[in-house]
């Protein structure tokens, strides 16, 4: 028996056979199977692929570009419930950043100075929390550790060189700004919460002090206008 040409069978995957071809397909299981196989390939290509392979782009990278183009507004206030729970997570993340920054600074005190670049790299690794409760408990734990770390540093080497100097102050400012932003959003959401207010004011005070330190740490003749 003569079979249909492969390309013709490919065409017939979604095409209409002639009368002769219809008669042939009715008698020839091989050609009918081939026609079905072509249709199956099309179906596979059509319905496989989405969600199955890793993404081609990273939103973080796109967001960076959008920020450069001014298409992402910074600090857009929102009153949605999503944001109400979201700030807890960001605040917890920011405190974690401070704690990890302090710890990293301590550990690397004799290795290399902290730079603003390094601080921004650290800030990318924001933890992902499953629930607001998890974020809150992390926040409390991190806050406790943060205070402990500060206390330890004050007693055992708060004057470590890594925590002094313009680069260290700029890195600290970057982290404090993140923390202040998260705390401010928290105060916006819960203006009568004394703990949040205290966090916010403490962060602002620390920021102000760091700015003054940075001004003092700059070489003579250089004035601080931005960091």
């Amino acid at each position, binding site marked *: 028996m003569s079979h249909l040409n492969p390309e013709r069978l*490919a065409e017939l995957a979604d095409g209409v056979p002639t009368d002769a071809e219809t008669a042939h397909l009715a008698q020839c299981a091989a050609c009918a199977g081939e026609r079905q*196989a*072509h249709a199956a390939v099309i179906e*596979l290509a059509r319905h496989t692929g989405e969600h199955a392979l890793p993404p081609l782009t990273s939103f973080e990278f796109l*967001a960076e570009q*959008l920020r450069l183009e001014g298409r992402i507004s910074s600090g857009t206030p929102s009153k949605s419930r999503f944001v109400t729970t979201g700030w807890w997570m960001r605040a917890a993340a920011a405190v974690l950043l401070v704690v990890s920054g302090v710890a990293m600074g301590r550990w690397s005190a004799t290795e290399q100075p902290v730079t603003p670049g390094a601080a921004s790299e650290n800030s990318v690794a924001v933890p992902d929390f499953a629930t607001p409760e998890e974020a809150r408990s992390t926040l409390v734990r991190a806050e406790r550790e943060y205070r402990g770390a500060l206390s330890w540093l004050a007693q055992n080497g708060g004057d470590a060189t890594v925590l002094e100097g313009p680069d260290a102050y700029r890195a600290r400012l970057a982290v404090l700004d993140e923390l202040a932003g998260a705390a401010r959003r928290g105060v916006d959401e819960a203006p009568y919460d004394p703990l949040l207010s205290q966090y916010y004011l403490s962060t602002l005070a620390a920021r102000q002090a760091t700015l003054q330190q940075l001004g003092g740490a700059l070489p003579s003749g250089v004035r601080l206008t931005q960091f």
Partner: protein
Amino acid sequence: MTAPATDQFVIERAIRGDERALRQLWTRHAPRIDAVVRRLAGDPDLAADIAQDVWMQIFRALPSFRGDAQFATWAHRIAVNRTLNALRRVRRVEKLELVIEDDTVSVEMDSDRAFLADSIEQAMQRLPAGARMVFVLHDVEGYTHEAIAEELGITSGASKSQLFKARAKLRRLLAHLVDGPMPVSERTHVTPES
């Protein structure tokens, strides 16, 4: 048809520069955008570059989205156009003649979806650029041969010819997945008289 309310709400916020809304759009639509870019481009590195360009264009053009079509359709159209433009730029559409090679690809049966998708992507990558684009545009994206001819600057007859050759080659490359009734090599093919 209008954009779904949820999309419309997110889009309005995204236009105002809300990062969360932009991320939501990306999360919701990236898989489909990725799929078409990946298939048209063939080369994974090139696909990644193009996808980035596509998303930037989608975000930049958001204010022009009027909601009279689904966002997915609108974004998808941008993806196809930008990808074809990019491919033209890198001169990947220089030659549309199909050279069917007698090669095969080793594809084993596996129920894993990622493996299946990867097998199909790899098979598509083995098609010549022109044939792959015609196949993706026609069989996956639903373009007519006339529209493809216009997009690629070829005749609709050439589009059909490319499509059937592409299908035939893909069928061979994916033989183990579609499990044909008889090995192709053992068959004799002749076109019966109409």
